[in-house]
Each structure stands twice: as C-alpha cells, then as structure tokens.
C-alpha cells in the first residue's frame, strides 16, 4: 500500500500521498484555495501568490501550489492573516489594471474579477499608473491586450505553437515586465491555429477570442455577491 502523509488543514485531519502539494490535498478535501496562476497537471508557477497559506512553524506564508505536504503539517488556509494578504495582492493587481470591465469581453468569465468579488474588495486603495499597450489583433485566433495582463505566466508555461515551440516569454524588468512573443512582436498569422485553450486559461481579459459582431458572449453574466 502506498505511503500516506497525515496533516491538519483548518483543524481537520486529512491525508495525502507523497509528492502532493498543499493545494492538491486541500482541493481533495473540499477546501477551496483561490489561485490565478496554477494550472493542474503543469509544473507550478508560483507567480500570483494568491494560494498562500499559513503553515505552523514557518516564518512566512507559503505558496500552497508549490509546497509539498509533509507529515504532521498544520495548515490554515483562510486565517485572518492569509485573507488580509490575499486582499492586498489582488488590490495591487487591480491598481494597475485598466478600469475597463464594463466594455471587456471577458468580464463575465474573468477570474481576477471573480476573486476580487469573493474577497470583497471594494474601491481601490492604491493608485498607480496603468499599463497602456496597443491591442494586438493581427492574429485570427487570439486577441492580446497586454494592458490587462496580470503576469500570472500561465500562457508562458502552456501556450505552444503548432510546432510545439513555446509562444511567449517574459521580457523587460520591474513595472515594465511584459509577456512577449519573439522580439516583442504581435502574434502573426503563423500561430493562429487553436488558441481557444490558451484564451481560456488566461485569468483576465489579456487574451481574448476574436469576436465577430453579433456573436454571443461567453458564459452567463457575473453576479457579484452583495
């Protein structure tokens, strides 16, 4: 029989198998930890930090998507400290995010917006300059609006050209960091084969479907709890 690892999550005794992350074990036990950069079955990215949890004995909060479970671990996934940290993280993402939800095609299915609503984030506390990049619509399968990118790096890890080459990488530095293709060029026609999967993994409106006039919007209207 396979070895079991016993730990405590939110005062509940649970167990996982060796190699599993805290996020995976929590998920199996019905505990929902928010994530923006995690993609199941792909190597963890650890960029968004929203999955942070409190682990007893650890000096800092740890990212649950890339921390393996260990015997006797005591984890809190929704303690006041964790919630406060998640709130600030999302507020910082929103601080440089364009106020364009009203006209954004992905507003109804936007993960960033849903998580902001779940965490009950209200009016912005932080004010900073926004990113303004031209919308890249040269490709027939995918529209890129990097002003809306939160740099979760999901597309960097997941998006491949039809030939299997990674399509995107990170460039520049600090506030100017940006997900780029080639020499920071718009995606040409060469890679517009099957982009729907990549558009779906993008948690914001940065990657969108090229929508034709009259075509239906994705999903139902987002209902914000209030």
């Amino acid at each position, binding site marked *: 029989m396979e070895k079991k690892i016993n730990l405590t999550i939110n005062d509940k005794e649970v167990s996982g198998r060796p190699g599993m992350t805290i996020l995976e074990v929590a998920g199996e036990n019905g505990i929902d930890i928010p994530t923006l950069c995690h993609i199941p079955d792909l190597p963890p990215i650890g960029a968004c930090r929203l999955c942070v949890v409190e682990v007893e004995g650890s000096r800092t909060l740890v990212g649950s998507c890339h921390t393996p479970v260990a015997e006797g671990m005591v984890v809190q996934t929704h303690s006041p400290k964790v919630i406060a940290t998640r709130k600030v993280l999302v507020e910082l993402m929103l601080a440089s995010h364009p106020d364009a939800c009203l006209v954004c095609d992905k507003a109804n299915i936007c993960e960033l917006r849903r998580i902001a609503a779940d965490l009950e984030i209200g009016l912005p506390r932080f004010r900073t300059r926004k990113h303004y990049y031209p919308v890249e619509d040269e490709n027939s399968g995918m529209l890129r609006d990097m002003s809306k990118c939160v740099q979760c790096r999901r597309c960097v890890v997941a998006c491949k050209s039809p030939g299997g080459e990674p399509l995107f990488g*990170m*460039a*520049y*530095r600090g506030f100017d960091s940006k997900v780029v293709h*080639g*020499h*920071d060029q718009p995606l040409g026609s060469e890679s517009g084969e099957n982009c729907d999967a990549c558009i779906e993994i993008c948690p914001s409106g940065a990657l969108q479907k090229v929508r034709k006039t009259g075509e239906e919007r994705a999903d139902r209207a987002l209902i914000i709890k209030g």
Partner: protein
Amino acid sequence: MTGKGVITPPKDRADLVERLKEVQRRYGHVPEEAIAELAESLAIPIHEVYGVASFYSFLSTKPLGRNVIRVCRSLPCYLKSAEMIMEAVEKELDIGPGETTPDGRFTFELANCIGLCDHAPAMLINRDPHVDLTPEKIKQILGAYK
C-alpha cells in the same frame, strides 16, 4: 547587418549574457538579427533571448546615439532628487528617457543602481561617472560630449 556566424556561438545558456555584451560592444546595440542568431545556436525561442537582452539596462535592442547618458533611478538617487536631474537632461536635450536626439549625439536612458550611491544623484555618460549632480551642472557636463 550581421552575417550568419559572425557572433561567437555561446557555449551554453549561461554564456548568453556575455555574448549579448559582445554584440553590444561591436554594433553599439543588440540588433534583431543577432538575437535570432543567438537563439538559433542555443536552440531556444527568440523571446527567451529577447527577454534577457531587454532585462538589462546596459543592453539595448534599439540603436543608440554616439553618447549614452544613463541617469540612475534607484532609491538613493531618487531620495537625492534624481528626478530634477532627469528633468534637467530632458530640458537640455529636448528628449525623454529612452529617446535619442535627432542628430544622434545623445541617447538618454534611465539605469538601475550604478553603485555611486555615496555621491548620489549620479549618472554615467558612456563610461564616465558624474556624481553629486545638480540641475545647474548638467549643461556644462553635456557640453563636453560631441
């Protein structure tokens, strides 16, 4: 501009920065062709090489002027009013950060810490350090570069 195989092929990925520095020394900036050539010889996507080249403020993917001004924008210089220095340079040359004068005499860039914090605010012109700057000093300093 760069014929195939003009650039010393990198030994491995760790060697990439050295090769990019060599390209910059030789051509004054890192042209697209060089990035493509380096990417091909390492068998990695172009965006990875571009990512490295664009990360470092001393590497440029665009052609530069004859003289390159790099005003430090890190915290110690900022606290010593580096913004006033940037404004003085902007006013003197009529260009903003990242731009080159139409005559190609100067390129004005912002750099991360250049290690001259004890004499902040500081800037480099080409390889010459200029320290303890005030807006009044800028005109004379720039005048020495043709």
